[in-house]
């Protein structure tokens, strides 16, 4: 149970210090450390990353959501195709999904040209892939549960009963 609580707090903000998490959960610091180690060792926590609002950055960053349809045969399963695609560093996320298409792939690059080239030269030619539909991301409003935008001001009175 406490592991689950620690996990929730890490998801809220992975930069909370062990001391902060200990204060919030009423655990000892070394218990928090142990819980985090356990979460990492068992592969529940796979890593820690910053949530970035690319629109706030000068540099261009191009992202695309790509829908992929595949045709399986006797030798090739979803796992084989996913392994092949997941290796590309341009691929930031890859998920098998239900519905009109099979894979949902997030791709990132420095320019539209780079992303298009990657899809046409590396992804589309994979023999099992029958169709790709690319959607470029124009604006992101929320990522990983965090809303972008300028943040609402706290309009509450500084004192209230």
């Amino acid at each position, binding site marked *: 149970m406490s592991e689950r609580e620690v996990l929730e*707090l890490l998801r809220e903000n992975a930069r909370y210090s062990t001391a*902060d998490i200990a204060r919030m959960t009423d655990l000892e610091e070394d218990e928090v450390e142990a819980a985090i180690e356990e979460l990492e060792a068992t592969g529940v926590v796979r890593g820690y990353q910053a949530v970035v609002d690319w629109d706030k950055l000068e540099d261009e960053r191009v992202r695309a959501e790509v829908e992929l349809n595949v045709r399986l045969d006797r030798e090739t399963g979803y796992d084989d195709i996913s392994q092949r695609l997941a290796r590309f560093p341009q691929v930031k996320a890859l998920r098998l999904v239900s519905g009109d298409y099979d894979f949902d792939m997030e791709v990132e690059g420095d320019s539209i040209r780079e992303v298009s080239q990657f899809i046409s030269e590396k992804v589309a030619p994979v023999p099992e892939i029958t169709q790709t539909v690319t959607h470029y991301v124009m604006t992101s409003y929320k990522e990983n549960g965090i809303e972008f935008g300028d943040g609402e001001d706290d309009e509450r009175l*500084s*004192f209230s009963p």
Partner: protein
Amino acid sequence: MTFELSDRVQTVPPSGIRRFFEIAEERDDVISLGVGEPDFATPWAARDAAITSLEQGKTSYTANRGRRDLREAIADYVADRFDLGYDPDEEIIVTAGASEAVDLAFRSFVDPGDTVAIAQPSYISYEPGVIFAGGEVLPVPTYEEDDFRLTVEGLEEAGADEADMLVLCYPNNPTGAIMSAEDLEPIAEFVREHDLMVLSDEIYAELTYDGEHTSIATFEGMRERTIVFNGFSKAHAMTGLRLGYALGPAEAIGAMNKIHQYTMLSAPTTAQYAALEALDSCESDVREMVAQYDRRRQFVLSRFREIGMDVFEAKGAFYCFPEVPEGFTAEEFAEEVLREQGVAVVPGDVFGAGGDGHLRISYATGLEDLREALARIEAFVDGHA
């Protein structure tokens, strides 16, 4: 012309918070731990229900006592959560905030000269409410050594056996104290023995972090002498929608409704739709907010201990109540920490007897701000050590 103010209005002093508010308004770097309202927005489903009701043009008065479907939902909710059984037709009234319900109760049951015992420290509106109704206040202090719980000895010492009415507020604003079933049992006995009426403000009932909330109305012989107050401001983060309710015997609620129907007519209609949805589908939002408050509570308590300020282990609401370090009164501490560090806190004195020497700290504030505010308090305390 000059207005001839009524004696009742003149008797009530201006709010003790006001002066601090003026200082806080002068600067823009203030982190406020002085707010007694959630920092969360009303759950989306409830907001959406309010919007939809507006789009459908549902903007007329409702029944005086509130929409029937809402009263039914309230009856189901309090039965389910707090083991309270009330008839939606006669024993529930929906009001513009618990505040209105409290005022209705004072005006319905207090005659000039009646004595109203108030367990203190407590929410600041009871005392003026009693005075506006023409009654007299009997403060019943509670103490940190009793975990700010009301005791029979406390009642006896204050002379509450002679009072006509007793006001309770647990979980408590400002201390964060709760009263368990074992704590309430002897109080109920005292109340029955001395034939008091009880007003029990349970608006923080959902925000109980240690065990289950128990209502004093569930004790034998108590239902017929108790009015229970609750509302949507705190647990459902709906302060601005102004919706609360009172539960009590038909005769008592009928009396309150008599005043309500002439002064308020009915509680805000849009808010009633939001509240109905809140009870219908926002339980998980409430649980999530309560979990967040609990984490902040533990964070704040543990930080005060690190800072070296004695702090009572708050178990309910979203306040904690540390003691001010030696060399300060609560007022001085609150004013200086506001001027020097830009942290707004409320001195405990404003909450009545037993509150002096303490500060009310609200943790209805994001964790980042809490962390910064406590670092500033730490710097302040270290600087004055």
